[in-house]
């Protein structure tokens, strides 16, 4: 099941402001390397995404990379998007078994407003406890792969242990 949230915490914005300052300075000192070939406005950055995995019941998410299938009822797969252009989009999240076979594929549509600078996070819950993962001992290094509008943007591994 998918959830989509727009993170709007003040501390998050402060972090982004700080990052923007650093980025601005870097651009100034790099001789405008981000300008386009014709010397006009910089080309838009390509969309990117980062993963984090959380035990849904844990009081906090420490972005762990290994989880016990016995102790973890649900694994939350969080995809944080950056540089997604305004408009409608479809995210496809594939969860691959150790060995590479496809376990599950889900799609989610979302929209980005013009001028929006809110961080965009899509969350999918992967049921673990009592599912085939635990019953059939599907342990090892799993892979999450996310696509935006049909183009693969990011992959990340996560380990499930007995």
């Amino acid at each position: 099941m998918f959830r989509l949230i727009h993170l709007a915490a003040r501390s998050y914005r402060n972090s982004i402001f700080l990052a923007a300052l650093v980025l601005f300075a870097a651009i100034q000192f790099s001789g405008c390397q981000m300008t386009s070939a014709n010397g006009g406005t910089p080309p838009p950055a390509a969309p990117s995404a980062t993963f984090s995995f959380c035990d849904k019941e844990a009081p906090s998410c420490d972005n762990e990379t290994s989880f016990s299938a016995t102790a973890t009822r649900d694994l939350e797969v969080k995809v944080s998007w950056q540089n997604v252009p305004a408009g409608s989009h479809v995210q496809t999240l594939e969860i691959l078994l150790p060995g590479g076979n496809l376990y599950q594929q889900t799609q989610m549509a979302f929209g980005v407003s013009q001028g929006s600078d809110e961080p965009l996070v899509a969350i999918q819950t992967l049921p673990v406890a009592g599912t085939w993962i635990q019953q059939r001992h599907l342990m090892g290094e799993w892979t999450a792969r996310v696509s935006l509008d049909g183009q693969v943007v990011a992959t990340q591994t996560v380990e499930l242990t007995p």
Partner: protein
Amino acid sequence: MYQQHSIIRLERTSWRRWCALVTALLIAAPVIAREQIVLQKSGTDPQARGEDATLNQASPNSNNVGNTLTVSGITGANDRAILEFDLSRIPNVGVKSATLTLNVVTAPSASVTYGAYPVSAFWQANAATWKTRVATTTWTTAGGDAAATATGTATVNASSTTAAFTVTGDVQNWYNGSANYGWLIKDQGAPDTSTTVFGSKQASNATSPELTVQFVQNVTGLTATPGNASVTLGWKIPALIGTPVGAETYKGVVILRRAGSPVDKSSFPTDKVNPTLCSTLGTGVVVFNDSTGQTSFTDNVANDTCGAPANGTTYFYKVFLRDSSNYYSYQPIANGSTYTDEISATPAATVAAQQNTQWIAATFATDLASPSLIPGLVAAMGSQTDLLFFINAVSGMRQFVPISLGGSIASRSPLIDAASSSTGLDIDYVTDQDGLIYAINTDTGVIDWVVNPITSGALSLQGGPAVQLESVAGGSNDVVFFGTRNTTTTTANQIFALNGNTGANLSWSPLTGPIMVTNSMTAQNLDIINSTPLVDYVHGVIWVTSRSACGTAQPSLWQINPTTGATMAIPNLGDIDASPTLTYSSDVLFVGTVGDSIVGTTCTAGNSSIYAINPTTGAPLGLPYVSTDGPIVSYPVVLNAAPPYFVIFSGTTAVHLLTFSVSPPAFTPVWSKTIANPSAPISYTGSSYVYVGSSDGTIHELLLTTGADIKDEVTNIGATKGTVGDPSIDEVLSRIYVTTTDQRAYGFTIPF
């Protein structure tokens, strides 16, 4: 020098013009594929699974199904058409091109361009509005969830009579594992003042939407017969189901072979190219290349110059039907084609050691539930790509194009034949992880009903539904039971009972934890339910297993009166994920636990137990059997009709057979057989064998009396080896069916 340069430049310009001319001619030439069909509602094609509606921004809660579809870009009053086709007439085809045509009823006053966007979420025409897609479930984005870019566009002006969209990629994807939710037609220039009215499915047939598909069929009747260092393949070239395009004819096949694993989806001959015999295409070798219409091939040292099969090795064959222009039966798309018919066999020196699949069918994602059956006719299986498959049990071919549902299907979906169902239909009840429950006609694929049984939000569902048949239990209709897996609570999960004919909640449904029970003065917490309930016709009750917060402080086995909802709770068993099992006479109920417990603050694995329960009183019969082999997989199975009962179950590392004597009640272990990550075991009345799937990619045939591993049948033991799921046995055809994590379903003859 100047002159010379000038001449060269002239030559280059001329050459470029020539190239451009040839390219233009090639582009203008018709795409030649073998067959073409136009899908449109007609006297012979009801388009039963097709549907359409208009989503109206100005009336965001109104459902608009009628004789027309409207598309408008007016600010604040946008209209979008949403439509889906029934592809049942072409269930086993490789799509080469597809064009969507909408017939204009009222043209716009000015030129306007529309886009066809593939929809990304399940919807139903009778519920779809600007805000809502099905039942009470809303679109993520009001106005319909769809791709960011249009697959095809069409420009319509005041004199247009049609709008044609090239949608080849979408239709190919639908035959290759993507859910088919149809298209959303949007005004690409919005906001503007243009409005166009198109004919809908409800309209006269002549103005209904059309989908023109060019395709190549699969071969039919594919068989593989192993011999001594040989495999003989047989197939049939299908009869036409469409109109021939040009003068093309089916004229043969190209066969790819791979050892150990199926030929992967990126391996196929390129359209319009004749591959070289013995060449390698991806992971497959071209072992047969025929253009003369042959319908068999014996792969042995006499016929196969690429290398004859070796005894003891399992070979997978993918058979591509070709037409006279060398178009092949596959989908030429970027992420590969999983569609083409395939089969396997293992040659051996002795007949006893030979083996072969009866069929292999693509399911596109992991499914480990036992396929549900109408024996001899249909095997149904879900997929975690939101698809539900109905496979012809004899041929392994799709009965029809898989049904696209709202979410992953992670459980067995009970299949009720028309003679037993209160609906009078062959019906399949399904739960999915979109929180929806479905009743699906297995003869047509039409969704008879779909409900979200709560008024807002979505349920978390993992276990499958159980069906109490009116034809056995009485009452006025079948009843569908299932429980929720809401992991945000260990106390307040729910048990539902729905009218099997309508999907409506029974008067007492849902039961929500904490539940007032008949055998305690205090309400009892209800943790998550991962299992499928069990219908007990003898005692007139429903049995439900649940977790119990990783301990024994709350119940995990529940007995429910299906008429009143009165519930008895059987305490202190611990977490249960497996479904319960009754003996044939229903005098003993067996349940197997997970065996975990809280250590410190963490739920930790431990010893599981098999309990025998008196189904009348709910009291345990004697002491449980304690297993050191991890959680019980799926369910225990009772193999005989009278005590002492033979009870078989799987743990993490082995299959175990116990006997249970009723008087005095006691378990006695008989044998344990080590099998890598075994599935639930299965057998059938009168059989000498037990069958179990494994993570080693095989199905093991164990001797019932001793557990000896007699013979294994290979699903996939090579590079893409999968874990084999819970088997189903079809006693009519003497076959066993499994699904695996290698994204396929397999059928074998039993005994092996």
